[in-house]
């Protein structure tokens, strides 16, 4: 797909089109670059999902299963009973439009159906027709639509054009969460075999190998050995993390990108230095080798299925409690779903830092804490020797990832760590951080190459804020606590805010952490010379 130039992308027309929104037709051919490839048959088959077949959104016939209308209708009915959120959200929206310009996809595309309110109306119009008396009686006058294959195609397009970031929900007077609506709409689409491969492949991999990337246990070990060799070269310190070690005190769960791809691997090195420094009794698992959970972008049942391994492994290894690494949507699952879905975990103990003695009362039932909670507590108690000047070549800002921000409220812990580890920290503008943070536009399975135009468009608000601090404060490092961010924001910055790199929080901590027995460390964990970069900055 030919990339559009920046000027082309910025020609955003916010004037609504002539065509009424109730017209569902989408021209997939003309809109290449703004949708994702469908799930491959083999992945659906592996997961036992309905209607596996190979197809393309540009096909006229999407090969829907026999009786698809009934399948959708019944599925909708079932979910209205199972989820009060869905039922209430279908009923109470007043179409006040407060959410309209809060969505990064609307801001970046001007497509009115990317306004959260209309995204929800795509589903709501069918709800009115199928489940309300007035909707049935008034028909189109009451804002109802009939379910047709065209409507399903429209759903596919727009519900896979929402990153489930929840920004709209912050501003809605009733808290209507279009992310929740999207999640349930995707469940309905899955019932008739409509989903995308960038979600289905990780789901299938994760089910089989334990992680999205399909890394098998021996490769898991090889990767980590390799990273530890690199780390030893850079720091002179050899870390030897244990894998699947029974009887460890803590199980550490992370997103697989952290031990697989640049720049996540530097965050992984940061974790390992920290654990070595503390001599923490902690183990990784090659089975629970993924905290991320693309079930979140598929169906609630799939979340539960994929997340099963976390507590199952904790029990098998006989650990006492868990720490979760830096990953956004993983923390949505760990914080808001895991305890309900996969608990109770009476066989674990309330997390208690063996270093400071702090009891993590906020995790007393789920028995898992965020690595930033753990590290902030260490710093507060003066347990870490840090030399923040080793990050002086980094002028750092922090991107709040959607899920830790709006489904958890993890704002200060990472900032506390960053401010201790770096001398130059700058916030992006107020309306783009914390609960108002803007999405990387590549979450919820949309971070694939074929969807690049939409990613860049949706990434404009974040990109624009990064560029602002780059120009104002010379920021060159965008830090975050999310593996998807680390992957997607790198490309986004390259486009909207060149010369800004992306780092995990624990990568920067790892740079600053003064390890006993370390060598001189003239470079940071990436091998970038500290002094040289500093010189370049002053020039």
């Amino acid at each position: 797909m030919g990339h559009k130039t920046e000027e082309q992308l910025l020609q955003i027309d916010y004037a609504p089109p002539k065509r009424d929104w109730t017209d569902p037709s989408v021209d997939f051919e003309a809109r290449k670059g703004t949708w994702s490839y469908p799930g491959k048959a083999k992945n659906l088959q592996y997961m036992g999902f309905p209607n596996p077949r190979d197809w393309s959104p540009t096909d006229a016939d999407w090969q829907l299963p026999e009786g698809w209308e009934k399948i959708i209708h019944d599925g909708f009915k079932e979910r209205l009973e199972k989820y009060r959120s869905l039922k209430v959200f279908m009923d109470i929206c007043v179409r006040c439009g407060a959410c309209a310009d809060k969505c990064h996809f609307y801001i970046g595309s001007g497509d009115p159906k990317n306004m959260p309110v209309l995204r929800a109306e795509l589903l709501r119009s069918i709800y009115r027709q199928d489940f309300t008396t007035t909707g049935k009686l008034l028909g189109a006058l009451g804002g109802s639509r009939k379910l047709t294959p065209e409507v399903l195609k429209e759903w596919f397009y727009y519900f896979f054009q929402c990153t489930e970031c929840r920004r709209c929900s912050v501003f809605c007077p009733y808290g209507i969460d279009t992310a929740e609506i999207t999640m349930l709409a995707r469940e309905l689409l899955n019932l008739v075999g409509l989903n995308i491969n960038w979600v289905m492949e990780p789901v299938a991999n994760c089910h089989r190998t334990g992680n999205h990337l399909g890394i098998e246990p021996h490769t898991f070990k090889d990767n980590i050995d390799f990273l530890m060799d690199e780390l030893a070269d850079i720091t002179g310190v050899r870390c030897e993390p244990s894998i699947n070690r029974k009887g460890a005190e803590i199980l550490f769960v992370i997103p697989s990108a952290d031990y697989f791809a640049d720049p996540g691997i530097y965050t992984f090195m940061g974790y390992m230095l920290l654990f070595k420094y503390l001599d923490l009794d902690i183990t990784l698992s090659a089975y629970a080798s993924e905290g991320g959970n693309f079930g979140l972008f598929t169906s609630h049942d799939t979340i539960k299925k994929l997340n099963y391994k976390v507590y199952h492994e904790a029990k098998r290894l006989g650990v006492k409690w868990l720490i979760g690494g830096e990953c956004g949507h993983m923390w949505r699952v760990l914080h808001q779903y895991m305890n309900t879905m996969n608990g109770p975990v009476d066989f674990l103990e309330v997390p208690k830092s063996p270093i400071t003695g702090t009891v993590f009362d906020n995790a007393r039932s789920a028995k898992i804490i965020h690595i930033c909670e753990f590290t902030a507590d260490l710093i507060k108690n003066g347990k870490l020797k840090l030399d923040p000047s080793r990050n002086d070549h980094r002028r750092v800002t922090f991107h709040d990832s959607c899920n830790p921000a709006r489904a958890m409220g993890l704002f200060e812990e990472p900032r506390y760590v960053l401010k201790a580890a770096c001398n130059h920290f700058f916030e992006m503008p107020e309306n783009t951080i914390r609960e108002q943070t803007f999405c990387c536009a590549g979450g919820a399975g949309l971070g694939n190459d074929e969807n690049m135009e939409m990613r860049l468009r949706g990434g404009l608000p974040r990109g624009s804020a990064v560029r602002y601090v780059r120009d104002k404060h010379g920021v060159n490092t965008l830090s975050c606590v999310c593996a998807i961010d680390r992957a997607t924001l790198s490309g986004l910055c390259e486009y909207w805010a060149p010369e800004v790199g992306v780092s995990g929080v624990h990568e920067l901590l790892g740079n600053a952490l003064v390890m006993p027995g370390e060598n001189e460390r003239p470079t940071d964990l990436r091998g970038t010379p500290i002094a040289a970069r500093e010189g370049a900055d002053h020039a």
Partner: protein
Amino acid sequence: MRIVLALVAVGVLAGIAWAGGQSPAMQAFLAIVAPYVAIAVFVVGIGARVIGWARSAVPFRIPTTCGQERSLSFIRFSPLDNPSSSLGAVGRMALEVLTFRSLFRNTRAELKPGGRLVYSSDKWLWAGALLFHYSFLAVFLRHYRFFVEPVPKVIAVLQGLDGFFQVGVPVFFLTSFGLIAGLGYLLARRLVDARMRYLSLPADYFPLFLLLGIALTGIGMRHLWKVDIVRVKELAIGLVNFHPAVPQGVGPLFYVHLFLVSALLAYFPFSKLVHMAGVFLSPTRNLANNNRAVRHLNPWNPPIVGHTYAEWEEEFHDKMKAAGLPLDRE
């Protein structure tokens, strides 16, 4: 088109009442039957809606967190924007309902040349909505004076405050003005803003026109074409005590006012106006953000088991052995 439709619908309702208000047979319907039916529909309808929502499960604890979580003792958390207890959630809901907290956050995004986005605070919707709702509440409470004799002290005080400026004879109530201004603003933004016009349905204009109709006829009766309040009060008290009589000589405007109110009540449960009750059941606002501290129960939790460790080890056994990884089954 959608606007005209809504306007016509309200016009037809008003027309029926205007014509009917002049025929004795219809007067009984408009003054007695319609209000009773409307109230019954309202009460039963809202009740049914609330029960309907309540019967759906809340499987997960999914608050939208709008502030710092409660975690470490040295980090200040936001008890109202990110409550860690049920009490906090009650406080959060109170803020939503009484002050429209979330609407207060509203911003407007603007794309400047060169791809720079700026966000300015935009409190107009918040102010307009607040003005409308509180005026509506005050007007509603003031009407209480028609239904009881003697008029309770609180209502009298409220009326006194409301007519504070002593403008006009009889005194013009501030909230009457507020109601019109609020509704006018809500309507205007739907008409003027192209985006709002695009997403609005007839069901968005209809209640606004209906309420405007109610408010304007009400003000009309008070200040322009005065009605006989004594007769109105007789009807009101009669309705409350279940022996209503058709009032004599109140004029058609009163019938229009009363019929539009009846229409509003009957329409309420079937419309977006149920947000009044629904907001309290919104799971992103009424739950505490503490699922790691207190386990939330899903009443239909399905018995799903994932890929077990044993199955996993089975598949990778030999490779693990070669790599020297620990095994459960040698």
